[in-house]
């Protein structure tokens, strides 16, 4: 019994990459829903991380995120992904309004030597749950997105990564003089993910 419990808590590089890329898929869906980038009718409710989560039903967005997470797992398994950024831009002007920044630190030893680490699923889930809660409640402090918006995802990878056929190099799409709020982190003991949202200052509140 003891050995079984112990074996359950072992986490491999591949497993960790799967957790992180799945997390990003849910986080992206949650952001798109909570920030109203896509209409709320296009989302359905599912249960995940012990929370009701929303997933898009829009085929275009669905396949975009699916392709994205598939590529992310590949990079994560190679330890080449440094950060993922979800950018929300004004549809009319292309101005960047929000950047959801997920920084990833990879344990180099695991990638190079193929060792595994120990951490319980439950604990990881609890950490992710806290982040998801924070994303859902971010609407209280983030400025309202008054205009139709679009989103894009940037992946920061090591330079020695060959650019896949379907990807292109991009500029970082930074926001000048942003406000920043740091959210919780989670750690699979192999990948540590820090979440931070930066956003454009609301002119109204400054007055």
């Amino acid at each position: 019994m003891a050995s079984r419990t112990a074996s359950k808590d072992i986490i491999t590089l591949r497993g960790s990459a799967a957790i992180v890329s799945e997390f990003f898929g849910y986080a992206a869906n949650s952001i798109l829903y909570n920030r109203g980038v896509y209409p709320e009718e296009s989302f359905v409710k599912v249960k995940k991380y012990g929370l009701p989560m929303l997933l898009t039903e829009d085929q275009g967005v669905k396949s975009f995120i699916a392709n994205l997470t598939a590529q992310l797992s590949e990079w994560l398994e190679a330890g080449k992904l440094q950060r993922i950024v979800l950018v929300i831009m004004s549809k009319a002007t292309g101005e960047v309004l929000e950047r959801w920044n997920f920084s990833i630190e990879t344990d180099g030893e695991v990638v190079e030597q193929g060792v595994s680490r120990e951490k319980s699923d439950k604990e990881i889930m609890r950490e992710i749950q806290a982040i998801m809660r924070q994303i859902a409640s971010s609407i209280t402090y983030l400025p309202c997105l008054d205009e139709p918006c679009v989103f894009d995802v940037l992946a920061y990878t090591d330079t020695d990564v060959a650019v896949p056929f379907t990807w292109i190099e991009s500029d970082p799409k930074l926001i000048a003089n942003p406000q920043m709020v740091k959210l919780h982190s989670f750690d699979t003991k192999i990948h540590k993910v820090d979440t931070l949202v930066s956003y454009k200052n609301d002119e109204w509140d400054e007055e």
Partner: protein
Amino acid sequence: MDAGSLSCSTSSSSATSIKTRSRFPLQEQHHHFIQRKNSKENLDRFIPNRSAMDFDYAHYMLTEGAKGKENPALSSPSRDAYRKQLAESLNMNRTRILAFKNKPPTPVDLIPHDISTTHHQDKPTKLKRYIPQNSERTLDAPDLVDDYYLNLLDWGSANVLAIALGSTVYLWDATNGSTSELVTVDDENGPITSVSWAPDGRHIAVGLNNSEVELWDSTSNRKLRSLRGGHRQRVGSLAWNNHILTTGGMDGRIVNNDVRIRSHIVETYRGHEQEVCGLKWSASGQQLASGGNDNLLYVWDRAAASSNTATQWLHRLEDHTSAVKALAWCPFQGNLLASGGGSGDRCIKFWNTHTGACLNSVDTGSQVCSLLWNKNERELLSSHGFTQNQLTLWKYPSMVKMAELTGHTSRVLYMAQSPDGFTVASAAADETLRFWNVFGAPEAATKAAPKARAEPFSHLNRIR
């Protein structure tokens, strides 16, 4: 610090370099410092002991050291982090930023594009919006029942205002200011406890003290039907969701009535133990918020209504400490609900009805009788009782008070918003009905202001 004097001493060890410089009388401060050091006295109040400081080493590290090869022994964790951050922010050679060639589909515009851009350009002028402090118009409302738990005022999509005064429902046409009487109920059935326009702006539901609900056609002044059997006590709150009329009673029940069919009671929500006084459907028609005298706020899911589970509700929210009457769904954020508590609570709370999380709570200092969102701006209007009997306009989400409108001399029980969203009517226990241009002037905004999705057919009424 003089860099010239130091360049000759960089190769020597830090200890000797101090000595070298001690004989170099260029700078007064250093001279003093050495003197004190030699005399073993520390007269500097601010930096009591400079002997532990290694100026040469520090200078070297700031200038020469950084130019040369990195010495692994010199790097500290914080330094590493700083360099890493610097490199990252400058995007130096370490990172490659990639994005998909195929972009995600752009969301379908809820608002026609040309309108949204003009709306955007209008923003600077709107920032300086003038909010009139006085009511634009005041009408007499004799015999208005001073009862917190009723809902006696509604402004329909055909721009006709309905108000119940005692046992009579009056209609006031906002386009020409004409008044007409819709119905007077018998004394044994009255008084009227609630009125609510159907989304079409033509039919109106009237809740009565005798537990019945009547449906009226306002164009022909004809009663269409009575809904009986849903409640045992008075019906104080009504809410429409297309052809479903939801009624909330003093008996704590909430009933969904399908007004098209003979056996109209299609679903019953049980949860409240006391009078239901607030009832609002979300714009999507998927969620119903209900507030009661039992201090509870429930969120019900339309889809779960027919399932026969023990707990039908989506969320049971116990945070208010007094009756929950004021409810308002946010027009620009589908899962955001604002609720206000009675005199013992005085708070406006914001909820994410998807998770049930309380997002914010603001103590207003007074009973919250009703809440309205501005359909055109991120603002919320609340109406209050003792002591000021005011209407307060809040900026959302910062909840900065933008205006306080006074005029009513008793608690402001009911509020209703014009179909264009700009004018607010308020009825108070002082038996007056006042109109406020609190949400801006229609001429200042674009002709067809972006509409809330709540009223899919409202544009039809506009064309006349």
